[in-house]
């Protein structure tokens, strides 16, 4: 910058840090001082450049919403490609499974039983209001709104977002939210999260993860989703068997 003092002045103006008088003085000087005009023009052009960064942010965000996709296969992995294709075809038939388990069952089992006046861990009513709104949106099938609600550190919010992500077909995002609960062992929501994690991984075609998570769940005799997990395991195995024939 040719004149650093102009930079500070312009930024203070842009950030609203000037008093009324200073602001009026600045605007008057901007009309009469060519050096300040030049510096201000440079500032405006810098702002235009931030569009490039905005583009990056948007692209990154879109990528984060995408399911993990199968990359281009090496020719030698042609057999694996065919296998994957057949598996996906089989899994498409399972789409009803996760829908059946994810929306109805979890909603009725966990959400309708959650008292709506629960105060969050820090006692903030603000977080409580956010959660309430999320629940309303979820019940009204406004899954996009649920996913776009500001992040609050509450396992119920994570569960709602995980289910909303499943409804959006974004299993990877669902599994991520579920994992926030599992990794922090936020009881009593861990079991529901474990099931959502499995559904998310199944939906995002990460069958190895899904199968490992099912195995782990099935080791817990009292797990409330044991029955569903067994059914899903059977369906997944049956798909594999069909493919292996």
């Amino acid at each position: 910058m040719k004149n650093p003092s102009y930079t500070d002045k312009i930024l203070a103006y842009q950030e609203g840090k000037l008093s009324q008088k200073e602001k009026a003085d600045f605007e008057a000087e901007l009309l009469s001082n060519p050096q300040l005009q030049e510096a201000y023009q440079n500032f405006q052009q810098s702002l235009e450049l931030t569009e490039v960064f905005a583009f990056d942010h948007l692209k990154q965000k879109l990528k984060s919403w995408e399911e993990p996709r199968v990359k281009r296969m090496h020719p030698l992995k042609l057999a694996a490609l065919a296998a994957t294709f057949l598996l996906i075809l089989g899994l498409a038939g399972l789409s009803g499974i996760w829908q059946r388990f994810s929306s109805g069952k979890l909603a009725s089992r966990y959400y309708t039983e959650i008292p709506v006046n629960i105060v969050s861990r820090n006692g903030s009513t603000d977080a409580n209001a956010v959660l309430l709104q999320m629940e309303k949106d979820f019940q009204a099938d406004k899954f996009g709104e649920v996913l776009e609600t500001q992040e609050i550190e509450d396992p119920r919010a994570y569960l709602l977002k995980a289910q909303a992500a499943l409804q959006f077909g974004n299993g990877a995002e669902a599994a991520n939210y579920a994992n926030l609960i599992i990794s922090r062992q936020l009881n009593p929501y861990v079991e529901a999260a474990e099931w959502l994690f499995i559904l998310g991984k199944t939906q995002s075609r990460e069958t190895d993860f899904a199968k490992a998570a099912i195995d782990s769940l099935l080791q817990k005799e009292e797990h409330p989703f044991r029955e569903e997990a067994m059914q899903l395991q059977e369906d997944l195995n049956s798909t594999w068997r069909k493919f292996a024939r």
Partner: protein
Amino acid sequence: MTSSYSDIELIRMIRSGGKQMELAMRYWNSHSGIREKLDSWIRKAGGTKADSADIFQDSICYLILNIRNGKFEGASNLQTYFMAIGKNLWLQQSRRSQHYQRILNSVQAEEATVINPEHILMRAEQINRLDQLLQLTGDACRKVLGMWSLNFSMREIARELGYKTEAVVRKKKHQCLKQLMKLTAQNPEWKKGL
């Protein structure tokens, strides 16, 4: 499955920026049914599934930026405008391909719906060119300024990028803008592309 938005609502949400804009973007990305439409067009014009997915994402980014910076004038509906962006991005990307003429012919034979293509292409080229130069700005600054320019609140930026407080983000944004002003002043040739 989810509420549907009119063009007017989507434009308002995109202009207000931040989380509202993200909601509109998510809606467009998942529910407008236009992904299939653009995919079908690109596949007919010689593109692969991967090409189509990439063009779809870029088109959403340009749609949002064009609405925010006032380049979208509402002369057509959003779907038509979006398709025009996608088609032009694909044509631009195919230029270097040896099959470009064939692609162009197939496109012309099918339809010639293009809205201000020069503008869209020029912007894409500018962004690509500036992108290399602006690597100098540093990753942290790119992220902070990118979100700030999209009207995310300091709180939202702090949450997403892992800063401890809003004050830290505010200070970072100040430093980054200052750095960017210095870079633009030192490299006046950048301004020609703007």
